[in-house]
Each structure stands twice: as C-alpha cells, then as structure tokens.
C-alpha cells in the first residue's frame, strides 16, 4: 500500500501540486496462509479442519497506534492495543468431541464458548480490563459473552501457560472463563468470516456455508492471537492470528446412500480459486490408512504428497495446492471426491492415549458427587496430567471428600491448588497434578451440596438445570514418533499450533463433557404469598406478646346480646320497663 501525503498549500492558497503525491513507505511484513485438512475418521464420519493464519510483524504496544491495517482485521487489532492483550484464545463450539470414536482433534475445544486471555504486565486493573474485553468481544462475535462475570471467571495457576512467546508467567494476568450453555449459529459464523482477508468471497472460505456447516455432529470456530518468534534467536517477533474451524460431518445424517464424500456434498460448493492475498493455500487429505488406495480413491488425483508428524503420529497427506492453476484442471473448479471401495475392512484407529469422561452421581436435589474418569491407554508409560475444574458457587464442593483412585488404590496428587468459592462472587477452582499409571483408569470424585438460590437468580427454564463447565485436562503425552522442535521450518499449520519443546512428547488438552445439574427450586409464582404468610406468622407472635404486655386482667362485664339491645332500645322509646 502507499502512504498519501497531505496536500502542500503555500501562502497564496494555491496547491503546490495538482495531483496527489504518492510515495511508497516500507510496510511491516504481513503474510496470510490458508489450509484445509480432511481426515476420514474411523467411524465413517469425515473431519474437516480449516486454518487461516495471518502473521504480522508489528508492535501493537507502541506509542502511536497502528492505523494501517491490511491483512490483519482492524477490529481485533484495536482490541489488542486497547486492552493490552498479550494472548487471546476464544472458541465457540456446538457439540462434544468424541475422542474414542474420532481420535484427537488438531485443536481441542469445549462445548459452548471458552475464552482465555493473557494480559500484558502493564495492565493495572486486570478485572476491569477483562470485563470490558468480554463485552467488546461479545459485540464483535455477536455472542452473549457479556454473561462472563466474576461468577464464572477463574485464574488457573498451572493449566494454561502462554502459547506464544513466554517471558515470565505471572498468573495474575491470566483469566479463563467458559459458557457451556452458549449456542453457536450463523450469527457467530458471519462476523468470524468477516475477519478473514478475503472474507468469504475467495479461497477456502467460500466453502463455509452455514446451512451445511451446522448440519453436522461437531462444529467449532476459534480465534487465537499470540506473539510468535520469526526466527530461532527470536530477534523479531510478529503477531499471529489463527482462525480455525473444525467440523465433523456425520455419515448417516448426510443421507448418503453409498459412502462417498466430496467437497460439493460436504459444503455445497466447489473451489474455483485461491485467495489472491494468500501466500499459500493448500488442501491436505489424510491418506495414511490408504497407502495403496485399497480403501478409498481420491479424485482428481494429485502427485503431491507430504508427511507430517502431528499428535505423536507420522501421517501422510495428499496435497492440493490451490495457488497452482493446474489443480483446478480444465473445468476451472476443484471438487475433491473420496469414494470408498468396499464397506468392510475397516482399518484400526490409533487409540488415543489420553481420554476423559465426567458425570454426576447421586440422587435427589440435596447432594451429589462429581466423578471425573481419566484413561491412560499407553501400555507401559505413565505421565502426569493437570486437571482443572471450575465449579459454580451454587454447587458447594466439600474438598475433604476429594478422593483420587487409580486401579482401585489411592493416588495422592502431588500438587493441589484449591480456591473455595464465595457465594455470588467467584466459583470453585480446583487444580491437581495427578500421575496416571500406565494402562489404567483414574477416578477423581468430590461431593457437593446443591444450594437454593433466590428466585431471581434462576434462568427462565430452571428445571432444565444448570451447566457446569468442562474440566480441562492438560498433559504432555509420550509420543511414539520423534516430534519436530524446530519452529522456523516450514510446517503445515495444523501441526504447528502447540509449541513443541521436546521431541519425545506432545502437548494434549482434553475437555470432558459439561455437566447438567438440577437445583431445588422455590415456587416462582409465590413471592407475594410467601411474604404475606411469613409476615402473618411474625405478626401472630408480635400480636400475642403485645396483648400480654400491654393489657391487664379484668373481670368481664357481659355485654347484652344484640337482640336484647334492640329490644331494650325499642322499650325505651315506648317507655316500658327494660329487660334485664
């Protein structure tokens, strides 16, 4: 882009030049990449993951504000500089990721909305900044993030480390909140698409049509902003914005007769061109389980093949490069087709090493128990996991009932950080470091008591229940394949999200199901009645004691009955002697 100089006007009020003077100025480098990974899943569903990454070498934190935005969306840039945000991670998810059937996702996300933010060290009032930030993001994404307040915000002490450049981590600048009840729909997708440089007009984003995307088993859209190093010595840093969209299409609801997936059937669109602003635009199809094309065939065929180590496994991908015109062929459109050859003969899926479930036990509306079950499926290695639980204040946890058992024996956590809740102010926060023995099931149980809330604190559908956000389990899982720790090497986007510090393990975050818990409810139609009845009882007490305190005993002179009174009155008029 070019910088327009102001017109020079001399003393006579005449313009110095007739035309605008255009001078090129050096712009900070920015780069946009887009990619789509399609992975056929073991259960017959298909997993599509879009990633859009913008890298921009600029400094949001300097004095004069950044005013020229090119690829980086202006709304997010202004949010970063106004609230001094170091890292921002927001996700909107509909559905629950079934780890046992689908394997590990590239980017995990919990059902509902999740927001976690690292603020810069220069922020003085983190809570005020958090509150304003949630409201601004609520406007940007058309979501009800304004329901995030102190009753569902926590400050995890160990589970959420910065994913970008790490200087020192003071957890006072971290805030984490989830809204498990949040629903994702077209209204959230549209502003998300608007943040892309090409919008939804060119490139991979043309496939993002909401009528097909929301007709799926799992849908998740996320935005991640973080500072990253450009080179190994980290002399220059740039801001990375990643927008990812994960969707799992269900085999059966798509009404497929035979098992066949194509871009048109999944997204009701085909691709005609790459985004002109993108430096790279690729589609990766996971063909690891199909080396000799015995299970399915891809058309149109592509000669490009690439290998990447992702989630501890070396996978092979067929690559379609959309920046090459030859990909689109003579029809100028790309409709990838994956046709299965036979219905039987399923390949075995790599079993996920870490997997978790959570449920509520107990009966009645007074007490209950939360059980979190973690599975370590590695045959001989044990590894530690960090479990983060944020429970709302109206489920009163009793931490003395916390038990952690593995294989039937007690397994004491080596680190417990517990912050008890304060009624109507903050939730419970429980973080534990648990060592999972190899090939075992670990169960964490804690008892709670359900509170009776004020009648105005219930949602309009109180008998639906109250949601408890997912537990977060973070772990470094041993990898069977050496992971690549070189950050500057060219890697597909999907394999380079979580920073990899060592070769023998990779970072995994697992979210459990959210819980739905019923609370006892008062009768909502009765406020006036209750006030009257209770005040009546208090008045009965007051009245009895008042009578006894202020009156004294006297002999009663009987009052004549009414009939006698009237008779006497008439007799008096007549002048006749009165009745006694």
């Amino acid at each position, binding site marked *: 882009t070019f910088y327009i100089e102001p017109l020079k006007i001399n003393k006579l009020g005449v313009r110095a030049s007739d035309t605008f003077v255009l001078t090129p100025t050096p712009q900070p480098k920015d780069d946009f990449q887009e990619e789509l990974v399609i992975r056929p899943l073991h259960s017959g569903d298909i997993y599509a993951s879009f990633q859009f990454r913008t890298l921009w070498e600029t400094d949001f934190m300097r004095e004069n504000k950044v005013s020229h935005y090119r690829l980086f969306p202006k709304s997010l840039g202004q949010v970063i500089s106004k609230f001094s945000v170091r890292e921002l991670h927001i996700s909107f998810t509909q559905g629950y990721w079934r780890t046992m059937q689908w394997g590990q996702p590239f980017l995990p996300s919990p059902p509902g909305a999740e927001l976690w933010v690292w603020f810069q060290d220069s922020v003085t009032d983190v809570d005020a900044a958090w509150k304003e930030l949630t409201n601004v993001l609520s406007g940007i994404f058309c979501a009800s993030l304004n329901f995030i307040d102190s009753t569902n915000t926590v400050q995890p002490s160990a589970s959420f480390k910065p994913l970008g450049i790490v200087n020192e981590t003071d957890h006072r600048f971290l805030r984490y909140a989830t809204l498990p009840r949040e629903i994702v729909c077209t209204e959230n997708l549209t502003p998300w698409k608007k943040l892309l440089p090409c919008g939804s007009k060119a490139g991979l984003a043309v496939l993002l049509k909401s009528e097909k995307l929301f007709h799926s088993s799992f849908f998740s859209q996320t935005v991640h902003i973080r500072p990253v190093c450009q080179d190994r010595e980290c002399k220059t840093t740039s801001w990375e914005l990643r927008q990812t969209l994960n969707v799992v299409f269900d085999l059966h609801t798509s009404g497929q007769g035979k098992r066949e997936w194509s871009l048109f059937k999944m997204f009701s669109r085909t691709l005609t061109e790459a985004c002109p602003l993108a430096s790279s635009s690729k589609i990766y199809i996971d063909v690891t389980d199909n080396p000799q094309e015995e299970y399915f065939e891809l058309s149109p065929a592509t000669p490009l093949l690439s290998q990447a180590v992702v989630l501890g496994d070396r996978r092979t991908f067929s690559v379609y490069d959309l920046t090459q015109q030859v990909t689109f062929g003579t029809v100028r459109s790309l409709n990838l087709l994956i046709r299965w050859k036979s219905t039987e003969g399923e390949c075995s899926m790599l079993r996920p090493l870490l997997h978790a479930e959570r449920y509520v036990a107990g*009966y*009645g*509306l*007074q*007490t209950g128990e939360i059980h979190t079950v973690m599975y370590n499926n590695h045959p001989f290695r044990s590894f530690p996991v960090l479990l983060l639980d944020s429970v709302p*204040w109206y489920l*009163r946890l*009793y*931490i*003395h009932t916390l038990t952690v058992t593995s294989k039937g024996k007690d397994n004491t956590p080596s680190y*417990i950080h*517990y*912050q*008890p*809740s*304060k*009624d*109507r102010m903050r939730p419970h926060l429980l973080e534990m470091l648990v060592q999972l023995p190899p090939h075992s099931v670990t169960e964490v149980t804690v008892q709670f008591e359900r*509170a*009776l*809330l*004020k*009648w*105005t604190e219930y949602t309009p559908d109180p008998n639906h229940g109250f949601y408890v956000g997912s537990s977060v389990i973070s772990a470094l899982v041993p990898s069977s394949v050496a992971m690549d720790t070189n950050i500057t090497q060219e890697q597909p986007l999907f394999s380079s999200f979580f920073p990899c510090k060592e070769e023998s393990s990779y970072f995994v975050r697992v979210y459990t199901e959210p819980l739905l818990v019923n609370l*006892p*409810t*008062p*009768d909502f139609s*009765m*406020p006036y009645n*209750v*006030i009257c*009845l*209770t005040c009546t*009882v*208090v008045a*009965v*007490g*007051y009245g*009895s*004691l008042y*009578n*006894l*305190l202020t*009156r*004294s*005993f*006297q*002999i*009663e*002179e009987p009052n004549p009955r009414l009939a006698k009174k009237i008779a006497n009155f008439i007799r008096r008029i007549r002048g006749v002697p009165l009745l006694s």
Partner: protein
Amino acid sequence: MAAPLTLLLVVAVTIRAALYRSSLAEVIAERVEVVSPITAWKRVIEGLALLDLGVSPYSGDVFHETPLVIYLFHFLVDYAEITFMLADVISAIALYLAVKEYNKQVVRKKQKFALEADRYPQDCLELIRSPKEMLYIPLKVAMFYLLNPFTILSCVAKSTCGLNNAVISLFILTTIKGNALLSAVFLCLATYQSIYPLTLCAPAMLYLMQRQYIPVNYRRASFWWFVVQYLFMYLGSLFVLICLSFFLLGSWDYLPSVYGFILSVPDLTPNIGLFWYFFAEMFEHFRLFFLCVFQINVFFYTVPLSIKLKDHPVFLMFMQLAVISIFKSYPTVGDIALYMALLPVWSHLHRFLRNIFLVSCVLLACSVLFPVLWHLWIYAGSANSNFYYAITLLFNVAQILLVSDYFYAFLRREHHLIHGLYLKKKDGSEATLVLK
C-alpha cells in the same frame, strides 16, 4: 438426688452411643432440621481440611464457625463424639443445679409469703406449691433435656448447637448462683458463638440485682452502677475473645464470615425457621429492609418483656430463650430443646394453660411431617417447596402459641395471687377474666 440423676445420665449416654454406632448417624447428620450452615459438623471438617491445605477456612463460604471452634476441634476432632456427649451431660447437670438453686429461692420467697399470708386472699394458698411437689422438678428438667428426641438428634448429628446449649446452660447456672463475673463470661462466650444471646443480658442483670437486693429503679445510682459493672465485665471478655480469635488466624476475615453471615443471611438452605423461603422469594428492592425488620424482631422484645417481668427474671430468661430459638436466622431443633427443657419449672401453670393440647399435637405432627415433605420435595419430586414451607410456618406458629400460652398462664397466676383465685362478679356469680 444423685442416684436418679446418674441413672439418667447413663441412659442418655447409652442411647447416644448406640445411635453413633448405627447407620442412622450419617443420615441424621445430613438432615436440614438438625444442622444448619452455621452448626453442621461436615462444615467443621471442611474448615479443618481447608486449613490443612493452606487455605484460610474463611476465604470460602462453607465454614461459618468461630476461630475458637477451629482451635478446639483441631485437638479434639478424633474425640468428637465424646465431646458432644459431654456437652449434653454438662448442659443437663448445669440445668439441674440451676433449677435446684432456683427452687430453693422460690421456697424462701414462699416462706416469706406464708408469713404475710393474712395480707393475701385465702384461696390462693392452693396456688402455692409445697417443697415436696418441687422436689422432682430438677430431675425432670434434666430428663426433658437429655431424653428429648430433638437433643438426641442434635447430639448424634454432632451439631455445634450442643456446645452453644452447654454454654448457655452454664450461664444460667452461674447467674442463678449469683456469680456475676462467671455469668458475664459465659454469656460472652454464648454471644461470641451466635450473636442472639446478647438479649439474655437483661434477665441476667435483673436477676443479679434482685439477688443483691439492689432495687430495680432507673432513678437510683446503684442500679446504673451495677449495670455498668456487668456490662464492663461482659464487654471486656468479649473484647478479649475477639482479639484472641484475631491472633489465632492473623486476620479479621472471620468477622464477616461468622457475624456477617448470621446477620445478612446469604445462604438460603431450608431449615425450620422463617427466614429461608422468605428471602428466597423476596423482591430484591426490599431485601435489606425486611432483613433489618426480621433481625430487629429478635432483639426488640427485650425491653418490653424486661419491664413487664422485672420481678421474675428467670421466667424472662425462659421467654428470651424461646424468642431467640423461634426467630433466629438459622434455627435448629437443638435450640428448641433448650427452652423446652425449662418447661417443667413452670409445670404449676398447667391449670391456666389454654391450648396446650392443640399446641402439642401440632408440634408432634409437624415434627413427623418435616422429613416426609422434605423427601417428597427433594427426592421424590412430587411435592414442591411450598409443602415444606407450610410445615415450617405451622411449626413456628405452634411454638409461638406455646410460648405465649405459658406467658398468659404466668401472668394470670400472678394476678390470682394478688386478687384471689375464685373471683366473683358484682352479682355474686362466677366471673370470667379477660385481657383488656
């Protein structure tokens, strides 16, 4: 009298020990009628566990006991059952000795009365009890306390209400014995644990002044001098306790957690009182107003009752205990057991009680219906909160009627002592007495 009392103590301890060993102990410890957020044993254990984890028990909203309770149970947590049984035994013995001492004084007063019998109408001599009738009253009081199902339930649930009752019983004992300093100290301990026994200052001061023959006349200097002395002892020990609690944990966090909790009622867990559903259904705008009204309601009967009953401070003490138990923010059946234990002292009033049958039937029915309707609301889901609330209302109305009935009977007996028992109207027929 020692032998029957010992037998009673043995029976009481046996019943409690048997219930501790049975499976009913956990069930009873969860009952909302028996434990409240202030007195529950589960919360004491939770507070001690938080302390072990390095977190202040008052940083959350689960633990609302005073720091001295933490200190006490830090050492006694393994002997909790013995502690609570001992607390019950101490209460019973204290009440026994207190009533015995009080009866001695009543007899002395009656002897004075008999000497002046010719000044009083003849027929009221039958209102006066003989020492032989009063012989078994202390034992009955101890029995009413120890064998009351409410007390047994409260002890088996390890509710700290038992400790509160023990302190109040010791206060009653030391007051009736005439020891002003100990009375102030025990009253301060009771107030420190739950604010409401503050109102018992008035009967204590009236009783001690009566015992020391100081005339209760606000124009006299000796009256004010005694009030100042007593309040000095009381406030001094309260100050010492508050400072001791500060040094235990090193912070003032416990003040809003304990006293702020009792006064502002944030926790709406159902109990047998009137506060929970009222504030669950209260319009937000009026919450503070009604909170103040309900809290003042507990304290404001003190002055009128003291003026009316200034010659009968022990009955005043009973009335105050009853008012506290009914109108406090988190009542439990343990509080009720304490004032019911004192009913045998006024057993001579039974001829003037008007609706004792109705009241006892209602109390019995409500005690049975509480767990039934709780189960229907919380577990079966076929009833809703209104059912439990209705029984709460009825229970409290019955208690109010009981207390006001005894008050009526007491005042009526005093009236008859002055004006004669069999009153006649002007025309000689039998008169009826009404309050006008």
